[in-house]
C-alpha cells in the first residue's frame, strides 16, 4: 500500500498574533508546499516577519507575545507544550536580513550551527559537512583556500551565502528567509536567487521579500499580507499577472 504523502509541510490554521494589546496577525490560514518556494510579500509593517518568525517560534522571547490558532509542522502543532525548541529549529532554520557572521573563521561559522544544535561530529565528519554545506551554498569555490580566514572579511553576498551554508549544514527541512537580499547588490542577489532555485530540490523555502520581482522570479507560490491580514495566496505565475484581489492589484502595481 502506498501512503499518500501530504503535499503541505507547514499549515498555519487560524493564526492570530498579539503583542501586548496590539494584534499583529489576524486569523491567517496558510499552508506551505513541500520543496517549493513560497514568497511572503506586503508593505513594511504588514506582519510578514512576525508571521515568519512564528513558524519556528522565534517570537517566543518577545514580551507579552501571544499566539492563537495552530501551526502544524508535519501535522503536529509546534505550539504544543511538548515541542522541543532546539529540535524544532534544527528542522526549521532561519536566514536573516542582515548577513551576520560570528567573529570566527569561515569554517567555524558553518560548524557553529552543528555545535549549537548538539550535532557535533568527529573532525573528519565535520570537515565533510562544512565542505558540503559550502558547496551547496555555492560558496566553496570562493573560500576553499581560506577556510581559516576571519569570516567578517567576506563580502555581503558571500556572508549571506555563508549564513545559508550554516543553516543547511544542520540539514533542516524548511529554511525561513527574511529579506535575505535586501542588503545585496544585483549580482549577489542573482547568486542567492540561483541558490534558492537549487536548494528547493532538498528544502522547503519560505521567503519574505519586499521585491515583487524577486518573488515573481524565485517562488512558486506567493502570499500577500496587508495590515496583518492574509489578503491573497496563489500560484506566483498568475499572482503577478492577474491577482484576484483589488488590494493585491493595487499593491503590485504601485498604487496608493
Amino acid at each position, binding site marked *: 500500500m502506498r501512503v499518500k504523502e501530504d503535499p503541505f509541510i507547514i499549515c498555519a490554521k487560524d493564526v492570530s498574533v498579539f503583542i501586548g494589546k496590539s494584534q499583529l496577525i489576524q486569523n491567517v490560514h496558510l499552508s506551505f508546499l513541500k520543496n517549493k518556494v513560497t514568497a511572503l510579500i506586503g508593505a513594511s509593517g504588514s506582519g510578514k516577519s512576525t508571521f515568519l518568525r512564528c513558524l519556528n517560534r522565534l517570537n517566543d522571547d518577545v514580551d507579552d507575545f501571544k499566539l492563537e490558532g495552530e501551526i502544524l509542522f508535519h501535522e503536529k502543532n509546534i505550539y504544543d507544550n511538548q515541542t522541543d525548541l532546539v529540535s524544532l529549529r534544527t528542522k526549521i532554520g532561519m536566514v536573516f536580513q542582515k548577513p551576520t557572521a560570528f567573529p570566527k573563521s569561515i569554517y567555524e561559522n558553518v560548524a557553529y550551527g552543528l555545535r549549537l544544535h548538539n550535532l557535533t561530529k568527529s573532525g573528519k565528519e565535520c570537515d565533510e559537512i562544512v565542505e558540503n554545506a559550502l558547496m551547496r551554498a555555492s560558496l566553496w569555490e570562493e573560500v576553499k583556500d581560506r577556510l581559516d580566514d576571519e569570516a567578517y572579511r567576506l563580502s555581503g553576498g558571500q556572508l549571506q551565502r555563508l549564513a545559508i551554508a550554516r543553516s543547511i549544514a544542520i540539514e533542516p527541512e524548511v529554511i525561513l528567509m527574511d529579506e535575505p537580499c535586501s542588503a545585496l547588490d544585483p549580482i549577489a542577489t542573482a547568486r542567492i536567487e540561483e541558490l534558492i532555485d537549487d536548494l528547493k530540490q532538498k528544502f522547503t523555502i519560505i521567503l519574505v521579500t519586499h521585491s*515583487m*520581482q524577486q518573488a*515573481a522570479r524565485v517562488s512558486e507560490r506567493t502570499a500577500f499580507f496587508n495590515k496583518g491580514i492574509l489578503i491573497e495566496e496563489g500560484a506566483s505565475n498568475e499572482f*503577478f*499577472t*492577474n*491577482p484576484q484581489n*483589488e488590494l*493585491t*492589484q*493595487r499593491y*503590485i*502595481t*504601485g*498604487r*496608493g
Partner: protein
Amino acid sequence: MSPEHKHIVKSFDQDLQRLQVLFMELNALVILQLEKASMAVIEHDKHMAKKIYEDDDKVDAIEFEITQFSLRLLAQRQPLGEDLRRIVSAFKIATNLERIGDYAENMAKRILKSENHRKLHESNPFRQSFLTLTKVVMNRLEEVMKAYVENDAETAQKLWKKDEEINEFYWQSFQEILNFMIAHPQDIPFYTDLLFILKNLERAGDRISNIAESIVFIKLGSLKVKKEN
C-alpha cells in the same frame, strides 16, 4: 482597477497617458487612410492612392514609437498586474492597427497597379455594399479604440463578437459579386479587383476583433467570456 487609485509614482501615470495619446494618433491616422482608400476606390483616384501609399510610412513610424515607448516602460517600471497586461498588449494593439493601415495601403496599391479598375458609379449595384462595409469597419475601429482609452471591457466584449457581422456582410457581397461576374464575364477583371479590396476590409475587421480581445484581457486578466461561435 478603479481610476481613483493612481500610481504613487506620478510619472508612471503620465507615461500611461502618453501611451494612450500615441494610440489615438495612430488610430486617427489609420482611420484617415481607410477613408481615403475608400474614396480612391470609388473615384478611381490614383493621385489619392499614391498619397495613401506614401503616408503608410507615417503609420509605421507611430507604431515604432509605441513599440519603443512600451519597451522603455517595461524596463523602467517593471510593471506587474494590470499594468503589465496593458503594456504587453500595447505591442499587440499597435501591430494590429499598423496592419489595418497596411490593408488601406493594399487597396491603394491595387488601384495604382491595376489596369482594370474604374470608377464605382452611383448606378453600380456594389457601390453601396462597398461603402457600407467601409463605414462599418471605420466605425468599429473608432469604437474599439474608444473602449481602449476608456478601459471599457464590456464594450470591447460586444465588439469582439460583432466581428461576425463584418464577415457575414463580406461573404454576402462576395456571393453577389460572384453571381454578377457569371452574368457579366467581360467585367471579371474589374470585379476580381473589387473582391480583393473587399477582402482587405474583412481582414481589417479581424484585426479590430483582435484589439477588442486585448482590451478584455487588459481589464480582466483573462478572456473570461469566450467568443461565441
